[in-house]
């Protein structure tokens, strides 16, 4: 094996606000197939965290099972990680999130892990508006078990072996909108220019941020006739908007066509600047978002970009009014207030 990543980096590699280079956000060398879309998504996550100057120890990566769920080993090597049971990532993320609301939570999942075995967990995480980035690396096949069609494979899509998928697909993005996810986006692993700002926006979003990323399986689903191949996706991309995260309030410096720029404030004061490309689409309107997705489908397009955003609905901590202090920082007296307090509570319930 001569497969070792050299330790040298570009001597002029730029540093972010907290003095780190990209190297501090990298993980181990990927063991996925050469050219896997998942690696591009990992690189986009690295870039987003670097750009936002997030301290790596303030990130938790949680995943299930599958090629996608292996990727947390390949990015943010200095962050917390939990590789959980198949389809059970949302439960672990919920637990972690409730214990400590100060971290950035990355849930990394695949089409099998989310649309099949983990579907039940997925919908409830949305329903609770758990504050996390839920990223699906969607390649329409089970790459880890040699490429069988997954639940997100399009009807009529041809596999590498030549069989045509007879079933209708689960559309994760429209489902997330339907269930009331507060941030829904769709992207393509081969378009970092779009994916990186989406991830940054998702990190800043207070609530459940869902990004469905079409990520071609270069080994089992990159053939002619597949609707999840590099070529097909590139040829059928529809884009809602160009998006940028504005960290500080500043005047719009770029001249967009009149009326096409929308600014949306997030909870933490940062703003999303959307330069709209799709007509009659309003990112804050659920009907409009569903229409845009359906229209794109009719035109045989994969609609990418931010699809829907709701900043009015509080996240799980807000709903439950939980403590701001992470549980591991609470002392015994706070965690276990004793029999007197218990009796008081019981009296209140009588």
């Amino acid at each position, binding site marked *: 094996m*001569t497969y070792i990543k050299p330790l*040298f*980096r570009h001597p*002029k590699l730029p540093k972010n606000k907290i003095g780190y280079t990209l190297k501090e956000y990298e993980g181990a060398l990927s063991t996925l197939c050469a050219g*896997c879309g998942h690696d591009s998504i*990992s690189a986009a996550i690295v870039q987003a965290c670097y750009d936002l100057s997030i301290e790596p120890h303030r990130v938790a990566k949680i995943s299930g099972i599958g090629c996608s769920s292996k990727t947390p080993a390949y990015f943010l090597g200095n962050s917390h990680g939990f590789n959980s049971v198949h389809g059970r990532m949302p439960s672990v993320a919920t637990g972690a999130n409730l214990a400590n609301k100060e971290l950035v939570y990355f849930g990394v999942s695949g089409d099998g892990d989310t649309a099949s075995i983990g579907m039940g967990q997925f919908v409830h995480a949305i329903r609770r508006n758990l504050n996390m980035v839920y990223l699906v690396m969607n390649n329409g096949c089970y790459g880890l078990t040699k490429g069988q069609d997954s639940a997100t494979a399009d009807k009529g899509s041809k596999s590498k072996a030549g069989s045509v998928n007879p079933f209708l697909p689960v559309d994760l993005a429209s489902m997330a909108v339907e269930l009331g996810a507060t941030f829904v986006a769709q992207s393509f692993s*081969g378009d970092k220019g779009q994916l990186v700002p989406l991830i940054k926006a998702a990190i800043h979003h207070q609530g459940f941020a869902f990004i469905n990323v079409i990520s071609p399986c270069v080994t089992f689903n990159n053939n002619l006739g597949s609707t999840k191949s590099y070529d097909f996706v590139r040829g059928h991309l529809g884009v809602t908007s160009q998006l940028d995260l504005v960290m500080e309030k500043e005047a719009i410096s770029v001249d967009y066509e009149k009326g096409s720029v929308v600014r949306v404030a997030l909870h933490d004061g940062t703003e999303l600047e959307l330069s709209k490309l799709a007509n009659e689409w309003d990112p804050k309107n659920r009907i409009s978002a569903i229409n845009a997705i359906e229209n794109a489908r009719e035109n045989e397009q994969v609609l990418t970009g931010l699809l829907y955003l709701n900043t009015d609905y509080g996240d799980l901590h807000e709903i439950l009014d939980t403590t701001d202090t992470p549980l591991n920082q609470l002392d015994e007296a706070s965690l276990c207030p004793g029999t007197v307090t218990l009796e008081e509570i019981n009296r209140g319930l009588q």
Partner: protein
Amino acid sequence: MKPTDTSNPEYYHKVVDCQYACPAHTPVPEYIRLIAAEKYTDAYMINWQSNVFPGILGRTCDRPCEPACRRVRVEEEPVAICRLKRVAADNKGDVKSLMPQGPFTPNGKKVALIGAGPASITVARDLAPLGYEIHLFDEQIAGGGMMRSQIPAFRLPEEVLNEEVNYILDLGIHTQFFTYVESLKEVLEKDYDAVFVGTGAPRGRDLPKLPGRQEGGPYIHIGIEWLANVAFEHVHSIGKRVIVLGGGNTAMDCCRTSRRLGGESVKVVVRSPFKDMKASPWEKEDAMHEDVEILDNHVPLSFEMEDGKLIGMKFQKVKAVYDENGKRQLLPTGEEDVFIPADEVLIAIGQENSFPWIERDIGLEFDQWEMPVVDKVTFRSTHPKVFFGGDAAFGPENVITAVAHGHQAAVSIHLMCEGKDIHDRPSPYVNLVSQKMGIHEWSYDSPVAIDKRYVVPQAAKSITLKDRRMEVELGFDPPLGYKEAQRCLNCDVQTVFSENLCIECDACMDICPTSCITFTTNEDKEEDLRKKLLVPAENETQDILVSDSLATGRVMVKDEDVCLHCGLCAERCPTSAWDMQKFFYSVTKAHEL
């Protein structure tokens, strides 16, 4: 920008920084890999083909390759290319049987070589196998030129010099040593088809006008003459207190030789600041290691005499002042003049060409500096049959430059004797071969060693200072040589990109450890494109590789500057759009025409 034309061999040649910087374009990474593989004989022969004197150069080369080494840009210290060459020479097996075997069928042409230094010997090597009758003239007792007369034996043992000079002389060269050529006209009157002048820069500069120079005559010597007298055993000792004037490599050889001939307090006194001295840094280090004191910013004022005997020298203290163009001026500091006591003084302040033996009426033009007018490509003078090379052509340089000149002059001589146009230069021999052997397997060691440069072991000072013939450097032993060889980044294994195979998955861009690869939209101007890369390509001495337009309309741009040639782009490429291909480049020699 237009796509880079990689079919021009000079593109990939430039990526191999060391080879490109070497005047003779020695395929450095190729022989370093052979050293790592313990194939010392093969490594030696690759060198011998290119630079004729691997053992000599492995000890004495000026190393233009090392400052160019990519490792300087990636970490700090270059690969010890020069001393690795010596590893090949020290450990080689039988090489003579791999060299051209005479006697060669005569081709009926005769060539005279004047001066038996590295340039002439190179011409002899290249022409002898073609059947030329070669007459080599030199005033010294043996071949080698300045390599024999000026490079001290503690840096270059005589056996090494004799061995490599004799490989060439044994090719059937007619040597006429102890023969000082007094007239080029007379040589030309004989029926030579061509004459090559490789007489070097034989005259050491003096300080004739400095007060006391005449009176102090017996105690003051010209550096290169004194070194020659030591080498040829006319001089065996020197006074206890020695001043060496000058800051170049000859000054370093003078002071270190003085230490071996009885000099106890040896001082090198130089006009310029220490950092501006012409001597190679390692030569300065070696001199200081042998207790030589280097005094910079001292301008000589006079030789001081007492009772007809030299007692020392006076110097003015100066400081260097640089104007906005970086031009240096040495201005007096106003401090009191410095007297340094000395028994003998060696003047090593440079050397000059001198052609008293060339008549000025034979159709050979000289310029205003009394230098012959020589073509920079063909090395022909204004006389159609006379060629120049080495220090004789354009002034003092170094051994490896002389070798490069010799190769080119030999090509010109052969083309001329064949009745061909000498301006029609042969193209280099090049080859580009994929190194892929399987998944994660390349036929070169692609992992990048993080080792720092290894130090060449030296013999103890207490031993080496007692014997001027005792070689100071012991050289890398094979295990250490292996470790140093593994520091080489294999820059000749090129990253070759085929845009028609690329599916733009970005895998190469994501994996590249040094952020060399960017997929982006094209720009008209190179400077604009350079700014757009992941890490802007600010080092303009290094090219950028620009692909043709890809399916999305973008281009792939690779900055060659700090590419580690680790092959990860090719490893991560699903379609083999990237491939690691070994580029071999060799300057075509006369005997290969």
